[in-house]
């Protein structure tokens, strides 16, 4: 027994990496499902635990400015992490693009969304988008509708979810017939009909990750970001329909 204890103590002192840490990760709502999978694989591989919080990118930024206890921030855009670095809230060289978001028009009903004609005809009462002021997917949706020239016609029918997750839920409950959501959500749901909005209709939704100042000395936080760049995470990210970041 004594030797066992002694060897355990020795083991722990020799390999500090085996000391599992917990780290708080703020995740943009659209990345909910893949983040859960990545966190699970991360824990299995490293022993570290990533505790995930999901919400709107803008909301997280407001909270991080007010000393929220997050160590890592997976945003839905590249603008917010850049702002975080500029404001001295994040570690300068830690920012990288972990995924390229894909915007789709989705309905819970099969055959409801045929393509861009669905938007042009506007045969629905409500169309859900994420709040463009808070969520990059919402801003991209507005951009796409404006480029197609249907924004003014559709504006009275727009309802806003606070996050892309709430937007999805509006459509999923049938309260809105169609909505602009993330492809990852539709893949996870695997139901209904959708139209992938062509990339040229909106600026690319580059989703950046950044190490926050609170995580600068946190080994688990750094390990999580490293894992996010690795092949296991890349496989999950691709599976959920995100584009891979080409060059950072």
């Amino acid at each position, binding site marked *: 027994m004594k030797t066992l204890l002694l060897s355990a103590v020795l083991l722990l002192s020799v390999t500090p990496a085996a000391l599992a840490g917990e780290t708080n990760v703020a995740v943009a709502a659209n990345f909910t499902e893949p983040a859960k999978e990545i966190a699970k694989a991360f824990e299995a591989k490293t022993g570290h635990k990533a505790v995930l919080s999901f919400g709107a990118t803008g909301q997280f930024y407001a909270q991080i400015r007010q000393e929220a206890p997050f160590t890592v921030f997976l945003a839905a855009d590249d603008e917010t992490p850049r702002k975080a670095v500029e404001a001295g809230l994040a570690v300068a060289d830690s920012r990288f693009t972990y995924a390229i978001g894909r915007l789709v028009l989705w309905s819970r009903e099969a055959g409801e969304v045929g393509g861009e004609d669905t938007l042009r005809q506007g045969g629905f009462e409500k169309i859900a988008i994420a709040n463009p002021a808070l969520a990059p997917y919402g801003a991209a949706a507005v951009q796409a509708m404006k480029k197609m020239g249907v924004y003014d016609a559709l504006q009275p029918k727009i309802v806003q*979810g606070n996050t892309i997750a709430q937007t999805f839920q509006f459509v999923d*409950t*049938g*309260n*809105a017939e169609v909505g602009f959501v993330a492809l990852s959500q539709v893949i996870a749901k695997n139901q209904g009909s959708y139209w992938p909005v062509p990339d040229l209709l909106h600026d690319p939704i580059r989703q950046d990750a950044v190490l926050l100042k609170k995580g600068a000395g946190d080994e688990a936080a750094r390990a999580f970001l490293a894992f996010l760049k690795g092949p296991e995470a890349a496989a999950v990210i691709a599976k959920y329909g995100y584009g891979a970041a080409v060059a950072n």
Partner: protein
Amino acid sequence: MTIWQPVLLTLELASLTTAILLLIGTPIAWWLARSGAWWKEAVATVVALPLVLPPTVLGFYLLMLLGPQGPGGWLASLWGARSLAFTFEGLVIGSVLYSMPFVVQPIRNAFEATGDRPWEAAATLRASPLDAFFTVAVPLARRGFLTGAVLGFAHTMGEFGVVLMIGGNIPGKTKVLSVAIYDYVETLQWTEAHLLAGGMLVFSFTVILAMMMLEKRIGRDRT
């Protein structure tokens, strides 16, 4: 978006909700105060539930009830709509449920405090029940009505969780004060947030203070 739009919308919502609650809350309060039914307290409990339920619970059920699969969807279909979610009407329904205990409880207490005697006296003087209700019961319970109306109004003004879940953030329709403040904070527009939040603080303080002063006066008048 102007900063006044959500303020006006919220005042409209709170006024309408309070009016509806006085209409339907009064008979409920009367029944709760006077009835001898054994299941009375179960009804009282249901009315009081919003006091302890998280607004998200109410918001979640409302989303189901107001949606196309729920009774709200059927109701909406009468004027050709699909769902009551994301409509001002939907917010009124939500607010009525959410603020009900704040109106019913004080009125019930006032009816109970009045007791049976004035009521019996009115009956011996041949007043019809309806007549006695409006000429005896209601004036005697005016304090309860005032408290209930003010609390119901103020509580609806501050509603947030329910609106966030069933509103859809439509300017002029469902974007109420609390949601507007929330948006301003999220988008780091501190000036507007301060304006609305500060205004709300002053309003709430004034309402409660005014109510206490009025209560005192009414209390003095009742000797």
